């Protein structure tokens, strides 16, 4: 089965400090991994994805994520947090070798709060 976990419901960080939002996955093959962000009263917005190639993926708004196959992780990072980064973040995973096209398991979400 394919699944994804976000071990932290809440992450607090001071403005200007680096931030990390954690994601681990479980798939039988090589995963496709995605990060989305949800601002209050809005839908999810795509941030970045890992399909293949370089383990460090850069995305929108200065975010990046590192794919670590040995640790089955895909943590979202940003070198210097902004108050405007405060939002709900979702990780999603797909095993391209199995599962129907419909299925894109999302994590339960991590609420990031950046304190001024």
């Amino acid at each position, binding site marked *: 089965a394919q699944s994804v976990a976000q071990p932290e419901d809440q992450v607090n960080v001071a403005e200007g400090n680096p931030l990390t939002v954690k994601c681990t996955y479980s798939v039988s093959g090589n995963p496709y991994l*995605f990060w989305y962000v949800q601002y209050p009263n809005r*839908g*999810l917005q795509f941030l970045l994805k890992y399909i293949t190639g370089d383990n460090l993926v850069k995305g929108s708004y200065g975010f990046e994520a590192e794919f670590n196959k040995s640790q089955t992780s895909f943590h979202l990072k940003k070198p210097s947090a902004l108050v405007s980064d405060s939002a709900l973040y979702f990780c999603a995973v*797909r095993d391209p070798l199995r599962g129907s096209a*419909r299925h894109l398991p999302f*994590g339960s979400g991590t609420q990031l709060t950046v304190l001024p």
Partner: protein
Amino acid sequence: DVKVTQSSRYLVKRTGEKVFLECVQDMDHENMFWYRQDPGLGLRLIYFSYDVKMKEKGDIPEGYSVSREKKERFSPILESASTNQTSMYLCASRTLPGQENQPQHFGDGTRLSIL
């Protein structure tokens, strides 16, 4: 940019009513999805449509039906609304070519309250 439009941001309905949710996308995407989002439960898939007139049950289809008569529109129906269907509903679309590695594009959501 892809635009996925959910016609209602907020809806308040009564128990037993028939409720229609609407979603339209403007990028000719084949795949469309409906999710509900509840605190602590993340996103749960209600229905998915591969293409026009094609639909597949998601993880929690009970109490919902859907129609996909036109490619741009994917509309779920709550046949007889119940209070446990109070939730945030999110529509998404995705292109078919290379679908496995394409992101979904989401609407802004419809917050539905059943009284």
